[in-house]
Each structure stands twice: as structure tokens, then as C-alpha cells.
């Protein structure tokens, strides 16, 4: 199974409603997202800004929403992943689960 295929398993994780995966260069790798019109562009723009801020790889970004469908951004090896969570799922719990899932890709 390729790295990308392994990363796409995130879609099966409890609490994950939608997700998008892009390469480090900002190219779409897997787009399983309905609520965002141009998710790869949005993700690439944010990831570039986050790198500029820290001058190093960021660990995570959490965007909180009134709908409770929080949006997460994580680096994963040579990819970046954006996730929209199910509104009924706890945000902190899902963040930890995704971080654990992605740990091996960021070693």
C-alpha cells in the first residue's frame, strides 16, 4: 500500500467526516471533501503561511466553527491533510487520534 493510500485510511476514522490530501507542492492528491469549493488551494495557502510564521514545520492547526464541524490541518510526511470532523465528535479527542495516526508519517 502506498503512503497516499495509507493516509487515505483517515477517511475511515471515527469522527472524520470529510478530508483532503495535498502534496507539499500544493497539488491535490485525494479530495474527499464536499463543503469547500477549492480545498487544495485553501490548504496550500494556509500551510505556506504557517511555515512562514514558524520557519519550521507546524504540528497542527485547529479551526473552530459554530457548527462544531471543526477543520483540522496536519502535515503528514510529504503531504498535508485537511479534515472536517463530524459535529458530534469531540475536537480534542479527534486531534489526538489523528496525531497518533500520522505520527509514523512524520518521523
Amino acid at each position, binding site marked *: 500500500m502506498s503512503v497516499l493510500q495509507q493516509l487515505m485510511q483517515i477517511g475511515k476514522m471515527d469522527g472524520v467526516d470529510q478530508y483532503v490530501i495535498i502534496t507539499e507542492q500544493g497539488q491535490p492528491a485525494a479530495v474527499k471533501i464536499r463543503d469547500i*469549493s477549492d480545498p487544495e488551494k485553501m490548504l496550500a495557502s*494556509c500551510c505556506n503561511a504557517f511555515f512562514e510564521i514558524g520557519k519550521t514545520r*507546524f*504540528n*497542527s492547526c485547529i479551526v473552530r*466553527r*459554530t457548527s462544531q464541524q471543526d477543520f483540522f490541518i496536519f502535515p503528514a510526511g510529504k503531504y498535508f491533510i485537511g479534515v472536517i470532523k463530524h459535529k458530534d465528535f469531540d475536537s*480534542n479527542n479527534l486531534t489526538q487520534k489523528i496525531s497518533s495516526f500520522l505520527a509514523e508519517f512524520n518521523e
Partner: protein
Amino acid sequence: MILFCEDCGQKNTVDDHHTLTGRAVFICASCGYANNYALGKLKPESDRRIQPLLDNICRDKDVIGAFVYNAQNGCIISRMPDFLAADDLKKMGRLMSQSLMVLLKDLPDMTDLTLNIANKYLHSKPLISNFILIVVTCAAERSDFLQKIIDTAGSGSPIKDKMS
């Protein structure tokens, strides 16, 4: 209050009467430059709320610092550590502001953002029109704490109402 010299970027502590006209009018203690620049559209009543707001936030043991950023005027009020230069804060504010705007386009109900870099957490949240509060902490989950303080200061959510 703390203001930054337009010429050399040094931090200056000045009395409130130097900003009564809505402009920062002061002589830089470091280089002697005669500063005279607009402070932005922060109304006096908002300013009176924001300064105690930053003070309250910075009392928390996990808070490293906080500042308010405006796209037109840069860093408006800062309680950040001295080792961070004005240009660094301005850049951080600009990039966080840009990210919020990009995210807001597709996530109009977003309320705030927390970015984790190198074991530091940058919490970004709007205060009033075009002004963003940025708080740097060394603890992960501070959004509830910040929300409580901000609500006390009279700011609500979501972001879209405040950044358009």
C-alpha cells in the same frame, strides 16, 4: 502604552496622552525619530477594553504573550516578550490575518484558529472589525479560557461579522 518607532522599530513606552488624537505622536527614545502615525480605527471605548483584555490574558501562567493586529496599521497593542522585534510581530500578524481570510471564505462560521508550531500555540481570534487578537501560549487547549475573557470584554463570534 507600548508603541513602536516607525523608523527603527524600537519599542517605546508612552503615556496615553500621546495617542489622544488617534495618532501616535512621540519621540523615539532609541533613535530620536519624531513619530506621527495613525493608530487605526480603534475607538477609545474599544481601546479601553482591549488593554485590560490583554493584561488579563497575560496573567495566565501559560501565556507567553499577546498582541492585537490590524492589517492597515500592524501591531496595535502588544504584550509580547521584548526579544520579538516589531517586524516579527507584524509579519506574524499579517500571515495569521491572511490565513483567517482564506479559511473564512469557505468556512464562514469559523470562530478562531489555533496553530501549533514547535511546542508553542498561536491562538488567533477577531476582536472588532479588522482587528485580530493573537495569543501565544505554551499550553495546548486555551481556547475556552480565551473565549471566556473575550466574551467578558464584549466580543462575540463568529469571525465573518467582524472581518468583512
